[in-house]
């Protein structure tokens, strides 16, 4: 038995080493930037990391994000959003910051997957005075509102607000060391991703589901938007809805600017299983945004 167990261990070591070589040689997994907490407890990427995703190079800038971080004053724009702005799957030239820059804007871009509406406002609040933008663009979705509210769905790794106590709760970086192991030991990461895909799962955070009716949810989101409007200066902000805006009336009532992109269909999405925008989707989104901010400039 001892001989048998030793043989299995020997084989396993050889296979694991060879498999790691295969995974790295054929780039079977994407590199994922690791996160840290900034001085305000918001999650940003560890600075100056580099990697490849879907064959495209990415690099974390000195602010802890993947896009441009220019602060020049003239035609200054601040863009904030989730994985659509993080945009790790597309080449750098397809980023919103790159597309706006091409049209003469100076752009500071904050994109991180999983960002909630309230977290994006926290980033906005932090960078507004430093960047001094003429306009701040939030690329959002209706679900970002819901994910911001603890009373709807408590998410431990996201920044949320309790509308009962008006207290913010910061997101924790979960399983930091396991993530580090997974990202560095590519074989494990590869198997983990394949397993998730086979189970048709998505990486979800530990959540305590609270059953809320659609009506109750809208009341809570309504309150969130009103509270946000009171606590943050949203005058020079443009809310770009990836889909439609379910709270149009309220936005109009509060005089908040918004546009709806409604980019649906295969030609705009990255792939069959990935509904993020492709380069074409980003191009269309950018043209719509440019049209709007061009009108303001006039």
């Amino acid at each position, binding site marked *: *038995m001892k001989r*048998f167990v030793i043989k299995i261990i020997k084989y396993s070591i*050889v*296979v694991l080493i060879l498999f790691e070589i295969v995974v790295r040689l054929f780039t079977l997994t994407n590199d994922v930037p690791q996160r840290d907490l900034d001085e305000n407890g918001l999650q940003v990427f560890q600075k100056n990391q580099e990697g490849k995703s879907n064959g495209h190079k990415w690099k974390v800038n000195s602010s802890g994000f993947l896009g441009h971080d220019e602060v020049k004053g003239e035609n200054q724009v601040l863009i904030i959003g989730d994985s659509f702005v993080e945009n790790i799957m597309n080449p750098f030239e397809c980023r919103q910051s790159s597309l706006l820059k091409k049209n003469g804007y100076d752009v500071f871009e904050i994109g991180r997957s999983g960002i909630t509406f309230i977290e994006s406002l926290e980033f906005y609040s932090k960078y507004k005075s430093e960047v001094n933008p003429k306009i701040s663009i939030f690329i959002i979705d209706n679900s970002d509102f819901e994910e911001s509210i603890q009373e709807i769905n408590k998410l431990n790794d996201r920044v949320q607000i309790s509308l009962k106590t008006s207290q913010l709760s910061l997101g924790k970086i979960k399983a930091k060391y396991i993530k580090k192991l997974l990202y560095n030991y590519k074989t494990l990461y590869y198997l983990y991703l*394949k*397993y998730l895909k086979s189970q048709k799962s998505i990486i979800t955070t530990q959540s305590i589901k609270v059953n809320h009716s659609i009506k109750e949810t809208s009341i809570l989101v309504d309150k969130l938007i009103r509270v946000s409007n009171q606590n943050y200066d949203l005058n020079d902000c443009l809310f770009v809805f990836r889909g439609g805006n379910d709270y149009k009336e309220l936005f109009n009532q509060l005089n908040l600017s918004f546009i709806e992109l409604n980019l649906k269909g295969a030609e705009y999405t990255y792939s069959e299983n990935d509904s993020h925008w492709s380069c074409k989707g980003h191009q269309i989104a950018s043209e719509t945004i440019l049209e709007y901010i061009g009108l303001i400039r006039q």
Partner: protein
Amino acid sequence: MLFNSIEFLLFLPIVFVLYWFVFNKKLKYQNLLILISSYVFYGWWDYRFLSLILLSTIVDFFIGLSIPNQDLEKQKLLLWCSVLFNLSVLGFFKYYNFFVDSWIDLFSSFGYVIKSVWTLNIILPVGISFYTFQTMSYTIDIYKGKLKPTKDFISFASFVSFFPQLVAGPIERASNLLPQILKKRVFKYEQGVQGLRLILWGMFKKVVIADSIAPLVNDIFGNYQELGGGTLWLGAIYFAFQIYCDFSGYSDIAIGTSKLFGFELMSNFKFPYFSRNIGEFWRRWHISLSTWFRDYLYIPLGGSQKGKWMSIRNIFIIFLVSGFWHGANWNFVFWGLFHSMLFLPTFIFNTNRKYTASIIAENTLLPKPKEIIQIGTTFIVVTIGWVFFRSDTLEDSFIFLYKMIFEFDINLSKASGLLYIIPLTTLDYMIRTNERNIIFTKNKLANNSLFILFIISIVLLFFKETSADFIYFQF
């Protein structure tokens, strides 16, 4: 639980460690562990159907115990009780709807319209065709005096539900497996290594070959009406290899897993596509089922002892029943009929027992030209038979075959499946003399490298986004 699932990859080492390191003190404990593990393995799919296995186990255990103490008439009665019970369970779950629908169709053809109120929504319990045959063989062997009944219920229940072969065989005989369960097992290094090799080879055939060819097969059989005959030939050949790799892969994993626990199961496949005639093919394909039918149906019907015509009738019956065993579908029945038509001429001209002991090119590197032609011809007719097996309806099968014969277009973009088939056939050829100890070459380094290559390719293709069930689970 599927062999090609992450659950099994965790389950197997846990049971292995418990079996050899924790429960190894007493045989009773080891058998109890096998029983519990087997029920967990089966219950992972649907725990409700464990009651069916348990019921089948209880009925045959007590009937088996009672048979030797009775006079001949009562023995016969008890045997019939066992056979009828097992066939009723099988008949209800597998064939009930088929018979109801067939009756309705028959009446409809005479102009009587009957509403299908008797059709039930029945789930087919996985492995039912395998374990009912296994338990039936136990009582039949006791009745024939070939086997003494066991008084150890746990051991008998372990025999019925032995997890490596529970859901898709090999269909074990009590006379082979039960004595092994009743005897203390000792771990043997060589047996363990052989087991691991068989598991890897089986996984390779299933995960790398069968599952990679499956989309091509589905595509060609799903769109056969728009495709040319050449492409349909490719589809039929792909299916021949898909079903071979899928089913023999399962059997290899089952035999290999059993070896890890100190058991030797019977061989189920012996390189059937290297057969030189259809008789040899049936001695090499799904051996546990064909020998079951031979021993428990063909011989009781009189075998070849009652004259040529009775033998022909008996052969015809076992092929028909064999087709029907695969499923409640006229396609399977026709597939059985087709094979009986292929086999009967060899029986009539006494060539069916040719090549009983040898394998092609046993002591040479390559087969003789005559053998290559024989192998090619046998493979072609077997492949034609697979068209009935794989098509949705009989009508589809005939149109498919018509196009295969009379249309010659080939879409070369569908030829990519050959990239799997050619290496598989080469590897199969390299091990053709021993299906139980997989050694591709005497060069140890080259052999080990091949297995490492298998592991890497299995891991790369292991997780599927689409279902990768074993084909024979549905039988």
